[in-house]
C-alpha cells in the first residue's frame, strides 16, 4: 500500500503517517489478525458456515487481543489506527473466515462513526474508553421494513421527553444482533421530522429488547447471523450522535463500509486463488515438464485478483486523502468513486472465486476437499447483493448526470 498523504491532524483522524514515522502498528495488527485467523477463524470456518452460527471463537480471540478497540484514539486508550490498518486487518481475517471478517468489519464501521462523530461528546468519550476496557461489540440497525432498502430514509423516529428517549425500529436485518453488546441504529430525529432527517442512536442492549422476526438461512455469509428483529429501546438523548446521519453517512459510514467490506472480499478471493494455486502446483508436480491446462486460467485469475487489489487500495487511498476535508467527502465525485469501489470489487470477487472453482474442478466443487471453493463462491455472491449492485449503479447513473470530471 502506498504511503498516505500526511495530514495535519493525524492523531484525531487516525490517518497513519505510513512510511513516514513507521510506527509498525500495521505489522503488529496484521500479525495478530494472522494468528487469530490461523488458530481460531480458519479451523471453525466450515462449521460456522454449515451451522450458520456466530464465529464465537474468533471474535472472543479478537476481544482478548483488544482488537475491537484499535480505531479508538490513543488519548481515549485505543491504538488510534487508520482506516488502511482496518482494511489490512479485514483482508487478513477474510483469508480465513468470511463471517469473522464481516462481523469485525461491521463492528469497526460503527466504531468509526462513533470515533469520528462522537469525539466532542463527553458521553461518547466515556463510551470509547469503555470500548477499550470492555471490548464492546457494536452491531448496526440501518435498514428498516418499509423503506424499500433505502437506508437514507427512516420511518421510525426518536421520541424524546425531556432528556429521555424511546425508539422502536422494525429492522429486516441486524447482523449478529443477539451477540452484540450495543447497536447503532438510525431513526428520524423526531416524530415530525422528514424521512431523510435522520440521526444515529447508540442503543444499549441492557436497555432494549430484540424480538426476532426473521431468520438467516442463506446461500453464503451464513455466520453473520443477520436475523430480522423488532428493536425496542429507551435511554438518554446523549446517546444520539451529535452529527446528523446525512453527514455521518457520507463522511464515514458509507466510505468505511465500502472499504472494509471490499477488503475482506479481497481476502475471500485471495484465499480462493491460493487454493487454486496449490491445486495447480500439485498437478504440475505429478507431471514435471507439462504445464497443467488450468495454469492458464490461474494466470487469468491472478490478473483479476491484482485488479481487485488495486481497486481496493485505490479506494482506501482516496478516502485517506480526503478524510480531513468533510466538505469534499460530501462531494458527488467522492460518492461516485466509493460506489464504484463496492460494485467493482464485488463483481471481481464473484468472477475470481468462480475462476478458482473451475481451476480446481471437482476438487473445488466438493465440500470435504482441501481445495473446496464452495464457501468462497457463495460468500462472494453476498458481496454483490448486500446493498444490491443494481441499486448502487442506479445511484451512480443519476449522479453521473451532473458530475463533470471523468
Amino acid at each position, binding site marked *: 500500500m502506498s504511503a498516505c498523504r500526511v495530514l495535519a491532524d493525524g492523531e484525531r483522524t487516525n490517518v497513519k503517517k505510513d512510511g513516514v514515522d513507521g510506527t509498525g502498528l500495521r505489522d503488529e495488527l496484521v500479525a495478530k489478525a494472522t494468528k487469530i485467523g490461523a488458530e481460531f477463524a480458519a479451523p471453525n470456518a466450515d462449521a460456522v458456515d454449515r451451522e450458520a452460527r456466530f464465529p464465537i471463537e474468533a471474535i472472543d480471540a479478537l476481544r482478548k487481543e483488544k482488537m475491537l478497540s484499535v480505531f479508538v484514539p490513543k488519548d481515549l486508550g485505543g491504538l488510534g489506527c487508520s482506516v488502511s490498518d482496518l482494511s489490512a486487518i479485514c483482508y487478513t481475517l477474510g483469508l480465513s473466515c468470511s463471517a469473522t471478517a464481516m462481523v469485525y468489519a461491521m463492528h469497526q464501521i460503527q466504531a468509526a462513526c462513533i470515533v469520528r462523530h462522537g469525539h466532542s461528546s463527553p458521553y461518547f468519550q466515556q463510551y470509547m474508553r469503555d470500548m477499550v476496557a470492555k471490548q464492546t461489540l457494536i452491531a448496526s440497525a440501518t435498514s428498516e421494513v418499509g423503506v424499500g432498502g433505502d437506508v437514507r430514509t427512516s420511518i421510525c423516529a426518536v421520541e424524546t421527553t425531556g432528556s429521555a428517549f424511546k425508539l422502536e425500529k422494525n429492522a429486516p436485518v441486524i447482523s449478529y444482533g443477539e451477540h452484540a453488546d450495543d447497536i447503532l441504529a438510525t431513526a428520524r430525529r423526531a416524530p415530525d421530522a*422528514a*424521512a431523510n432527517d435522520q440521526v444515529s442512536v447508540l442503543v444499549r442492549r441492557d436497555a432494549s429488547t430484540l424480538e426476532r422476526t426473521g431468520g438467516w438461512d442463506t446461500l453464503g455469509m451464513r455466520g453473520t447471523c443477520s436475523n430480522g428483529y423488532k428493536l425496542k429501546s429507551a435511554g438518554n438523548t446523549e446517546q444520539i450522535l451529535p452529527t446528523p446521519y446525512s453527514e455521518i453517512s457520507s463522511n464515514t459510514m458509507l466510505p468505511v463500509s465500502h472499504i472494509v467490506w471490499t477488503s475482506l472480499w479481497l481476502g475471500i478471493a485471495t484465499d480462493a486463488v491460493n487454493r487454486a494455486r496449490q491445486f495447480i502446483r500439485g498437478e504440475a508436480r505429478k507431471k514435471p515438464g507439462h504445464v497443467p491446462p488450468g495454469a492458464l486460467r490461474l494466470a487469468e485469475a491472478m490478473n483479476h485478483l491484482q485488479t481487485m487489489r488495486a481497486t481496493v487500495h485505490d479506494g482506501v487511498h482516496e478516502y485517506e486523502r480526503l478524510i480531513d476535508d468533510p466538505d469534499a467527502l460530501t462531494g458527488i465525485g467522492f460518492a461516485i468513486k466509493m460506489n464504484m469501489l463496492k460494485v467493482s470489487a464485488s463483481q471481481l470477487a464473484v468472477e475470481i472465486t468462480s475462476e478458482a472453482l473451475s481451476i480446481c474442478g471437482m476438487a473445488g466443487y466438493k465440500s470435504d476437499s482441501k481445495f473446496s471453493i464452495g464457501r468462497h463462491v457463495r460468500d462472494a455472491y453476498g458481496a454483490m447483493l448486500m446493498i444490491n449492485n443494481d441499486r448502487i449503479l442506479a445511484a451512480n447513473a443519476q449522479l453521473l*448526470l451532473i458530475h463533470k470530471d471523468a
Partner: protein
Amino acid sequence: MSSDAIRAVVKEHGRLSVDINTLADDADLYAAGMTSHASVNLMLALEDRFEVEFPERMLRRRAFESIAAIKAAIDELTGKSPA
C-alpha cells in the same frame, strides 16, 4: 439572481416535505426533506434554468443546502457579485 427564481425551481424539483414559502432563504433544504436524489434533479434543473454548469468543486452538499447557498453559487458562476 433573484431568490424567487431559485425558489420556483426548488419548489418544482426539490421535493420538499414542507411548503417552500414557509422557509427562510438560509433554511436547510435537506432538513426540509430534500433527498440526495432530489438534489441531483434540482442541480440539473438549475443548470438548465440559469444556463450554468456547476463545476466539480461546487457539487457538494453545502452548495445546495439553502436558497441562499444556491443563489451564491449561481451568482458566482454568472459573474455577479454576491448579494
